[in-house]
């Protein structure tokens, strides 16, 4: 095993995670989730009235996610405002979360989820999904399950769990592959699978198996954060 990750982690080691709920008093639910230096916060508002009316669904509420990588979150200032990238991530986050929600009790309404990345060190979309799923639970929205998310990377031929910025920019050999995955905590239904780079089909199965193990750890962190608020 000559392969070493740039920050010295083991191949299946996740960066230190922290999670906290109820961080935004004015939101109906809120949470923070961090993977090492990546910090994501999420705020949930609603169910509330949806305008324009033609977007309303008379059978259930709709979920509206807005992901924003804040301008100070990266070393070079990012131009603030919506971008192609943030629109894409907003949409995939929405798709990753909506199967977990049961919104038929709130017809014609919207649930707004704001995801902000305060510090970015790769894996921001999965940190955002983890935070948003906790925030939705804290907002008292009926849910099937919590959603856990993690990014699996491939550096040359080695699979690594929880990609950071150095690993994302890895260029030797086969180069870097980034696979963000999201899954229900208590069943093996995946709600997000993206792939940026190249991977062999048989290696993909290994990557998913690695993700399953990582999800269990993430779920414990999320569960603990939600439970300890009320333990005093």
């Amino acid at each position, binding site marked *: 095993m000559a392969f070493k990750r740039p920050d010295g982690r083991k191949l299946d080691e996740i960066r230190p995670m922290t999670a906290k709920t109820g961080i935004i008093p004015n939101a*109906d*639910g809120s949470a923070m989730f961090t993977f090492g230096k990546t910090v994501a916060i999420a705020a949930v508002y*609603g*169910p*509330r*009235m*949806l305008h324009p009316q033609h977007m309303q669904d*008379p059978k259930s509420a709709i979920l509206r996610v807005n992901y924003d990588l804040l301008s100070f979150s990266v070393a070079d200032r990012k131009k603030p405002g919506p971008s192609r990238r943030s629109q894409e991530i907003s949409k995939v986050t929405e798709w990753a979360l909506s199967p*977990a929600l*049961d919104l038929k*009790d*709130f*017809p*014609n*309404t919207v649930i707004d989820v704001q995801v902000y990345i305060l510090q970015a060190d790769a894996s921001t979309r999965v940190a955002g999904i983890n935070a948003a799923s906790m925030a939705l*639970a*804290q*907002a*008292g*929205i*009926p*849910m*099937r*399950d*919590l959603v856990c998310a993690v990014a699996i990377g491939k550096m040359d031929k080695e699979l690594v769990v929880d990609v950071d910025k150095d690993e994302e920019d890895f260029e030797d050999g086969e180069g870097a592959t980034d696979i963000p995955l999201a899954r*229900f*905590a*208590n069943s093996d239904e995946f709600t997000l699978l993206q792939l940026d780079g190249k991977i062999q089909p048989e290696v993909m199965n290994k990557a998913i198996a690695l993700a399953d193990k990582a999800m269990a750890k993430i779920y414990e962190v*999320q*569960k603990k954060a*939600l*439970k300890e608020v*009320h*333990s*005093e």
Partner: protein
Amino acid sequence: MKEFETKNNEEYEDMGSEPVSRTVVVPGEVVATGEDFLPGEGARREGSDVVASRYGLAEKIGRVVKIIPFSGAFIPRRNNVVIGRVSDIVHSGWIIDIDYAQNGFLPLMESPRFVNKNEMDQFLAIGDVVSAKIWSVSPKGIDLAMKGKGLGKLEGGFVFRVNPSRVPRIIGREGSMINLIKEKTGCNITIGQNGWVWVKGNDIDSELKVRKAIEFIAEKVLVSGLTEKMEKWFGENK
């Protein structure tokens, strides 16, 4: 003198006084295993397990497992007393903002005395605060009623918000908590199920004390025997 009607709230129990098993659960967590248990509010059956659908306290009462949510937006039900603010006047009544995705509608007929259609703001103007009862909830909207004891326009005082899921605790079993606060401060208090609280007292100090007391209760989610604790709190915060 506006008295809060406690009889509407008997379905909510003071969480501190019954010795049943309670645990904090997150959505998707298995609360009970086996066909012996039945899923109640906030829970569902999956295979042979009863699984939580919401974040809150799981409570087993006999065979039924239900989840008391910690937080979340107000969901209107018939006969809930709510406090709202007049947001618009239309030809047949008033539109009331009740802090929900839909506005409430208070028909003209609900006013206790005759109101001239051209001078509806003489009775309720935009911005006025009212306490009303939810008459019906339908996909078309929420209808309010204002005929009843303790309902009507709330004049003077001020309104603040608490989390709607804390309202049963603030009222207490058969109004024990709210009556304690009223007795200690001498203020008139009306609490809506939507989490709006209206307070009016003789002086601003006692009004602010009510607000402090209620916010103190809203913070304490899992504490039992809260009414006794509040008596002590009033002792310390003279």
